[in-house]
């Protein structure tokens, strides 16, 4: 006989779920209330509010920011495909087994170590100011171009490691199956290994892209008036830090959706790999 309506266990599960939701809601409300009540009671709150959260300054300065932020987005959009392409090439170079190409492999290994071993802001300063000093040319000597190149070079080292991990995660038996059909090692890489590797590393790549989207602001140190520098100018003009809050809001508008999307991809990947979650 089939039961009508939920079983005793289903009712129990539903009760448990309701209970969790109620507890989560109550604890969130309590914490938020405490923050809202307690922070204004600190002795410096009035000064901090005037310096960072001044409505008047916000109204005057914020309209100039989105246009400058578009500059950051453009750098991001141009750098991303370059990074993915270069990262892939370096990952290949680290995987070559032919002895003739050993120097290439060595170079790729040193490259990823050096590029990841120095803070991004140093690369942007060194390359962004150094290369234009060498070139002395109006078009190609622009600091912003070379600062972007620095972003591409450094990020491609991180992305290369992600791709390499993905390539190595494809099981040897897949390679054996492809080679047993008579496919060459290159055909095996392009038709069998790489498509599976890329699918696996998309979430990790997205994480790097979220970081890149924020690190683009670092190019401001070589001079272009993008959103961070524009906020700095406004700060100097109004003697107020509120423009920085405006810039932060703009970054959040892009990075939060990107992060949520990445989490969604990660969760989907985890479900695919390991079945249902355990309580």
């Amino acid at each position: 006989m089939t039961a009508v309506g939920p079983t005793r266990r289903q009712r129990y599960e539903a009760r448990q779920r309701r209970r969790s939701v109620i507890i989560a809601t109550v604890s969130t409300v309590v914490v938020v209330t405490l923050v809202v009540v307690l922070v204004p009671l600190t002795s410096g709150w009035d000064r901090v509010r005037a310096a960072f959260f001044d409505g008047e300054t916000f109204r005057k300065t914020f309209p100039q920011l989105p246009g400058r932020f578009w500059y950051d987005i453009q750098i991001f959009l141009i750098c991303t495909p370059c990074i993915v392409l270069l990262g892939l090439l370096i990952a290949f170079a680290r995987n070559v087994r032919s002895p003739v190409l050993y120097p290439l492999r060595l170079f790729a290994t040193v490259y990823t170590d050096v590029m990841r071993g120095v803070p991004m802001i140093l690369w942007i300063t060194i390359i962004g100011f150094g290369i234009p000093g060498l070139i002395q040319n109006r078009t190609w000597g622009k600091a912003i171009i070379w600062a972007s190149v620095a972003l591409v070079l450094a990020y491609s080292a991180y992305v290369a490691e992600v791709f390499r991990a993905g390539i190595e995660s494809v099981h040897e038996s897949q390679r054996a199956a492809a080679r047993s059909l008579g496919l060459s090692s290159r055909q095996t890489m392009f038709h069998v290994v790489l498509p599976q590797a890329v699918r696996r590393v998309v979430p990790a790549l997205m994480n790097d892209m979220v970081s890149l989207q924020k690190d683009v602001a670092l190019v401001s140190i070589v001079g272009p008036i993008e959103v961070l520098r524009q906020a700095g100018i406004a700060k100097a003009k109004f003697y107020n830090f509120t423009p920085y809050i405006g810039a932060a809001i703009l970054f959040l508008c892009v990075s939060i959706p990107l992060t949520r999307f990445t989490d969604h991809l990660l969760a989907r990947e985890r479900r695919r790999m390991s079945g249902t979650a355990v309580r």
Partner: protein
Amino acid sequence: MTTPKLRIRGIVKRFGERTVLDGIDLDVTRGEVISLIGSSGSGKSTLLRCINLLEPTDDGSIELDGVDIAEPGLPADPVRRRIGMVFQSFNLFPHMTVLRNVTLGPRKALGLAAGEADARALDLLTRIGLADKANEYPDRLSGGQQQRVAIARALAMQPELMLLDEVTSALDPELVGEVLDLVRDLRTQGMTMLIATHEMAFAREISDRVCFLDAGRILEQGSPQTIFANPQQERTREFLQRIIDLG
């Protein structure tokens, strides 16, 4: 006497200190079906992988139609195109549909046009009763269906020799039958096959000759009747007794 399809002499394979194949001699004539039996680690799978050049050998020769394919430095890809291999764990490409799994070899390794490769693959899939699954991905298929697709993938290369490496060991018992039926069909069509297997009843029924491997050597070989009914070696008797006890 005609040259055998495959002539193996003194094959040695070591993994570090461990000798896995210790001087294997074996002749396979065209159309012959040979079963390799023996306990796990006796070298059955390694022998098949060596014949398909997936593992380099340390000594000995493997002649395919009189040409030594184990000679170092010889390109392996043209040899592999002539030899089909089916693995215990299927090893289908999970990111491709069944049809693309079967057409990948003919298209990329043989350079067939897409239309021709599709026609050949659909013909094969029809023969094994899986034409309706052509556009499914492997994870939507049962283990038995996946293994039949893996066999079709190897057959699509129109190989001269098939190597089957414990093709039913990863299957649920009720799915073993459909795969063995397909192997029987291949025999009927005259395919030359080397079969590593734990299915003794099947080995007895399908083989022209059965080889018992022990510690990297072929300890005993002969017709299925001889090996199963009247084994000469003590080790063979022990092995068969253990299998019967388990069954």
